[in-house]
């Protein structure tokens, strides 16, 4: 059945035109890209924008390319495009592993990485991985272009640092210098299509440096700095993993909802971190389970 709320639809041809439309319409305006979240929310009457600004025909937003040491993911790049991208496959295996767990093919063909972090639900798959890579979100608005570090992007459930009138144009993902091993572990109610009940992204870098981020266990995806501070410079062994696991409750605040209880999330997070960090370190030295292998 059609969406019942009354709204206008516009399809600007340039970024400037889109920003102008957003500014004019004020808080009632919403940017539309893949729409896999937004259209569903509109049908459920969770949101009722008065204007949808469809950015899909704006040139320059549908490219994925390398700029300097960054992978630049345009705002219109879908999860399917990420999975097909040769640079992603060869240099950003963690992005690829994450993209393969996001929903199903029919959603991945349409949903964009930029939209994923703009929806900013606590369980978004893009969040933990982009936190681990220390990505930057490129936005364009009335005051021109600016970059937002991903650490400042997520402000709360469905809240981001995007200001009124601004549009995400790209996500820049820096390639860690030297080799890196990564692992994304996602827990769902079943294998296949589901939102994360909990998720863990780990990057293992040379000289025993680690980056860890969690999803679906706090109001936003979170970077686990305390775990990293404990682990950096130390050899990963059972004792260190045990110590790090004990710090997880300090970094997270899981809740009970329809998909899992607080206790279950907290317990599984420890198990997932354990397996994910071991896999990331093993992959750094060329071993470990193949990417995409279910670890949970």
């Amino acid at each position: 059945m059609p969406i019942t709320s009354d709204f206008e639809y516009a399809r600007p041809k340039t970024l400037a035109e889109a920003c102008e439309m957003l500014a004019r319409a004020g808080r009632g305006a919403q940017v539309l890209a893949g729409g896999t979240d937004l259209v569903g929310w509109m049908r459920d009457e969770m949101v009722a924008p008065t204007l949808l600004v469809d950015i899909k025909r704006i040139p320059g937003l549908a490219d994925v390319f390398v700029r300097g040491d960054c992978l630049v993911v345009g705002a219109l790049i879908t999860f399917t495009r990420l999975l097909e991208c040769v640079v992603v496959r060869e240099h950003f295996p963690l992005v690829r592993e994450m993209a393969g767990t996001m929903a199903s093919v029919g959603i991945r063909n349409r949903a964009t990485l930029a939209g994923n972090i703009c929806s900013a639900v606590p369980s978004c798959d893009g969040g933990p991985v982009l936190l681990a890579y220390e990505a930057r979100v490129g936005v364009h608005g009335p005051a021109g272009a600016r970059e937002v570090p991903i650490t400042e992007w997520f402000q709360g459930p469905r809240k981001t640092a995007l200001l009124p009138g601004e549009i995400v144009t790209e996500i820049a993902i820096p390639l860690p210098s030297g080799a890196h091993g990564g692992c994304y572990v996602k827990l769902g109610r079943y294998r296949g299509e589901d939102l994360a009940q909990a998720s863990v992204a780990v990057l293992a870098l040379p000289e025993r440096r680690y980056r860890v981020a969690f999803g679906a266990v706090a109001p936003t995806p979170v970077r686990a700095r305390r775990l990293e501070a404990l682990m950096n410079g130390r050899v990963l062994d059972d004792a260190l993993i045990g110590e790090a696991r004990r710090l997880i409750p300090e970094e997270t605040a899981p809740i009970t909802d329809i998909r899992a209880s607080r206790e279950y999330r907290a317990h599984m997070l420890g198990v997932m971190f354990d397996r994910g960090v071991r896999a990331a370190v093993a992959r750094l030295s060329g071993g470990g389970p193949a990417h995409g292998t279910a670890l949970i």
Partner: protein
Amino acid sequence: MKHPITLNVNGEEWELDVESGETLLDVLRTRVGVKSPKIGCERGDCGSCTALLDGKTVRSCLILAVEADGHSVITVEGLSKNGPTELQKSFVAANAFQCGFCAPGTILAASELLAKNPHPTREEVQEAISGNLCRCTGYVAIIDAVLEVSRRAGAGALDAKGKERGDA
């Protein structure tokens, strides 16, 4: 607010005036009269509204009709214009559906997979159809049907309308 759009559905050009709030699924079923995409969950979870948009499977319940302006849509009706495809015959032979509600979406998802990857593993088939819920079969017969057609035929015998654009 009405928007004039053009939509190519199964090879036919349609010119339609659509409301902002009409979804592609609404328009396909009620205006164009193509009934294979089904109204299921209407939130992108069940896959029964699947259609091929420019060759890729999408959730037609989560796309506004006006967004599809100028694009082409293929449904099972278009896939089987010249009679059932090998995949559809394989579904029949394997008893791969009972009520049939999920079948159009599942067939499109499997067609897209086989066009990309003519000889998938069992796990790859499971992954490809994981967004298409079936409450009758338990999936085993569906997966068998896809694997069987992949075994019997080369990629050439399959309908390749869902062919990739060769993106980097």
